[in-house]
């Protein structure tokens, strides 16, 4: 897809992650657990916007027409969701490693936290893939992504923060209920995308 054809955009996101975490490293040293957690998710959010927004905003009209002629909208949106999920999982892992390397490691349950980061990255990428498809229709305006996306992502982000906070404190246990809720939300997003995308598709 796009990232294979325009490799600079892929490396661009990598550099974006590295530069952001490096700036954080310069401004604060070794923050406490909950601040670390908050910073991490906000950075994830911005990485996601940058990585996923490209998938629709940078496709040219001609290429969209080409996709239109070779595949059905449902297949197309599923492919996009899948690809962006994989991309975001990779990015989440990279930023997690960089956070560990540069900002210290206050996490108590590392394997659980890594799993949650992957789940969170997946949720973020799902929501923003669909929003990118909407924003692409609105005069290729990247700012509109943030306007559309931030209010919608609030519940998921708060839920993620709450679940992951347990990974910083050995006394708290991670609640399976909340994880199930998060997965249910992801399934809801996927369903809505499949139902609604065909309407966005025709032009």
């Amino acid at each position, binding site marked *: 897809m796009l990232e294979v054809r325009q490799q600079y955009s892929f490396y661009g996101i990598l550099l974006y992650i590295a530069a952001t975490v490096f700036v954080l490293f310069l401004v604060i040293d070794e923050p406490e657990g909950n601040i670390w957690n908050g910073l991490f998710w906000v950075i994830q959010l911005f990485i996601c916007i940058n990585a996923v927004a490209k998938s629709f905003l940078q496709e040219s009209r001609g290429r969209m027409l080409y996709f239109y002629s070779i595949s059905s909208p449902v297949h197309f949106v599923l492919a996009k969701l899948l690809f962006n999920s994989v991309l975001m999982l990779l990015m989440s892992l990279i930023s997690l490693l960089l956070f560990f390397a540069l900002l210290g490691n206050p996490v108590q349950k590392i394997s659980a936290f890594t799993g949650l980061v992957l789940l969170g990255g997946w949720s973020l990428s799902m929501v923003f893939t669909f929003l990118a498809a*909407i924003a692409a*229709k609105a005069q290729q305006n990247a700012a*509109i992504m943030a306007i559309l996306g931030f*209010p*919608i992502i*609030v*519940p998921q982000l*708060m839920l993620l923060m709450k679940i992951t906070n347990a990974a910083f404190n050995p006394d708290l246990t991670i609640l399976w209920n909340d994880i199930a809720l998060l997965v249910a939300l992801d399934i809801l997003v996927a369903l*809505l995308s499949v139902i609604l995308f065909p309407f*966005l598709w025709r032009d």
Partner: protein
Amino acid sequence: MYKTWWKFLCIILLVYALVAGLLIKVPNLPILGETSRNLFYHVGMWSAMMVLFICSLVHSIRYLRTMNLKYDIAAKNYATVGIFFGLLGYATGAIWASYTWADPNNPAFQSFSAVAREPKLIGTAVALLIYFAYLILRDSINDLDKRARVSAVYNIFAFAMLFPTIFIIPRLLPSLHPGQEGNPALNFKDVSPQMRMVEYPAFIGWALLGVWIATLKIRINLLKEKSLLKK
């Protein structure tokens, strides 16, 4: 849309809510005192807002099913009036809160930022932000049909994501609002029976008023866009 009986019902209910809301006897609770009469007006705004947003959602779905621009205009106007009621809800809530939660002149109360971390405030803020974004999205697209289609899709998607917000966030945060565990002084879980007699008619009345305003706006807009719709 053009029937009149529900407009009379709306007027009767609202007059009843205004008169009875100020005259009935409310339980005189500590801190709350007589301010609990605001229940009829403040919570009524939220009920009207939710009804209007649901109307907007229904019209967006109908638009996608029929591709008739009439429904798009309806969805937009329901959303605008819904935002208006949401802002009124904040206004009435702020007045109420200044007597019960956060008067800046009273050192016994918490600071504003502590009160603002309140699930219901956050939920409404999310709802209002979503619908402001909906209006901005509409304005950023010039083509009429495309605008209607894209904004209808966003409306449905956003509404579907709004419900988890209302459902999840109260579980994550402590609340001052009654109905959850919170400040025990405010926990008037048992709205007294007389108050209920006013409460529900008032909610229905406000919701009807909101729908009435919205239908008037829709009719004006339909007249404005007549030339477009006729083609």
